[in-house]
């Protein structure tokens, strides 16, 4: 599809923290695979390991190496803005992937490509609420929330989306407590164990991702209370999908790291090709519940 004129683009990517969960790992693999399939691009793949200083250093390195475009998965949506500005001053277009940077930096960014975490949180709230309505307990249901690692944009946005939307759709459902599960199944299992001791009546659990949701489910199963509780997560992982199939886990948000990665790369190429790309390039993350799960393939991660 590409002519001789732009025979080869070099695109650099600095990711948040590969290896911390399988979403990010699958993303990286999908990104590299997509790049390999495309003869016209070569990629420099870097990982910040969750450290913002390292990520800024990697931005500087990529600028210094004079790559054609930079994709960034920010470790901190605000701290990277000056580094992004530096890139734009060096005439290198920057594409933000997965979670956006703060508005102040929008001037220096060519495009954002990724899921809309606020919407995801809101959709999780809707899934939960619909379920309660079906059960007829929307008037008195009590829920707990297990959020992602404190400090991460994704965690914050998902919690915000959920907390803002819930009172709109189910004003009488109370969120009794939120504790972080650090994206970690075991940690979230411990948190849930304490919730179960503390509260006799828990009707729903919202977890920031399925990994944590399954951790909570395990705790409830061990306490013999899983049947009474609606579990809703986000970022549907394979474990969550299986638990849904087993009828233990109610719903989640379907978000594919492969889509995420491919969208980011394609956006970068489109920008380099001079195409018109929308500034906010969300890819869709639909609701998935026990009712509609046959429409989705089981996640590979």
């Amino acid at each position, binding site marked *: 599809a590409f002519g001789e004129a732009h025979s080869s683009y070099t695109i650099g990517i600095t990711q948040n923290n590969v290896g911390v969960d*399988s979403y990010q790992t699958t993303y990286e693999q999908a990104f590299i695979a997509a790049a390999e399939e495309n003869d016209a691009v070569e990629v420099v793949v870097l990982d910040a390991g969750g450290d913002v200083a390292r990520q800024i250093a990697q931005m500087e390195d990529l600028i210094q190496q004079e790559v054609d475009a930079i994709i960034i998965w920010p470790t901190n949506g605000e701290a990277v803005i000056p580094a992004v500005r530096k890139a734009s001053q060096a005439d290198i277009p920057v594409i933000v992937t997965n979670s956006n940077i703060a508005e102040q930096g929008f001037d220096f960014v060519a495009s954002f490509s990724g899921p809309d975490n606020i919407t995801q949180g809101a959709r999780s709230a809707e899934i939960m609420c619909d379920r309660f309505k079906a059960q007829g307990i929307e008037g008195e249901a009590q829920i707990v929330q297990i959020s992602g690692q404190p400090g991460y944009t994704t965690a914050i946005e998902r919690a915000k989306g959920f907390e803002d939307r819930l009172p709109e759709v189910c004003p009488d459902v109370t969120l009794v407590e939120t*504790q972080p599960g650090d*994206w970690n*199944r075991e940690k979230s299992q411990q948190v849930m164990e304490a*919730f179960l*001791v*503390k509260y006799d009546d828990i009707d729903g659990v919202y977890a920031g991702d399925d990994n944590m949701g399954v951790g909570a489910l395990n705790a409830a199963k061990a306490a013999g209370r899983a049947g009474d509780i609606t579990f809703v997560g986000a970022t549907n*992982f394979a*474990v969550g999908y*299986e638990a849904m199939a087993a009828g233990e886990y109610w719903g989640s948000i379907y978000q594919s790291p492969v889509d995420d990665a491919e969208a980011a790369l394609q956006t970068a190429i489109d920008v380099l090709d001079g195409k018109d790309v929308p500034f906010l390039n969300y890819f869709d993350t639909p609701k998935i519940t026990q009712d509609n799960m046959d429409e989705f393939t089981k996640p590979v991660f």
Partner: protein
Amino acid sequence: MQGFLARQGILVAFAVFMIAFAVANPRFIDIDNVFGVIRSSAILGVMALGVTFVVIGGNLDLSVGSMMSFSTIVVLDLHDKIGPTLAIPSMFAMTLALGAFIGILVGYLKLNSLIVTLGMLSAIHGLTLTYSGGKNMDIADKSGTWFSVFGQGSVAGLPMPILIFAGLAIVLSIILSRTPFGRKVYAVGGNGVAATFSGIPRARVVFMTYLMSSFCVATAGLIQASRSLGSQNTVGQGMELEVLAAVILGGASLLGGSGTIFKTVIGVLILGFIQNGLLLLGLAFYAQYIVTWIIIILAVWLDIAAKRGGLWSRIA
């Protein structure tokens, strides 16, 4: 009595603590909750037992967290490939090999344990990622395997993780306090040169402490894997410092040569109950950090204050 208070300050602190929480929220001492806490402390606890040996021997082990991730991922992966009966010993062998590697570096090559195990923390994490391809590892057929017995089973109403933790604690406590090997660990940690001059094979003793530590890590990984039948690559991340905190809380000196398994167990339980108690009180998660800070320093302070017979340090 005062002497006892001083010597067992950590136990007293523990008791005071439990009572305070129980008053604040009676559910805290609900038997289910108590079992729940011990059960979830068991993984940390089993690791702390092994690290106690290492610390008494005068070294540190910061690699246990990432090593535990490794064991968990490996046993889960092998479970589906070669079946649980073979997977468990294979995983133990691989984890012990890592422990042996560290043991050789620290024991025989006499490299500094802080840096070696810090390096191994990173290297083993890399190894785990390579092994798993960065993916979560899950057992395909979760309901059809007896493998869940270590994490979810129970005997006579007692959950297996607690039984394993308790059993291992008793065995290791006896090894440490009653056998020649245990004595040698104390000697090597107390004064390595003098131990060598007494004909104690220092390198081998240090090597053995790391082997024991990795054995405990493998056991912890087994419980972990069996408990959730699936895991992330980062399941043990950050646990090294928690483990160390528990061992220190129990009064083991980082200079080596002192500490006991019993005290480590108390240290583990204190950490577990603090976490749980604060959660039950509905305090924000960061309160747990701050309380742990205060408890660690108070516990160690009172411990050494009792030894020197005065609250304040004599250094001018």
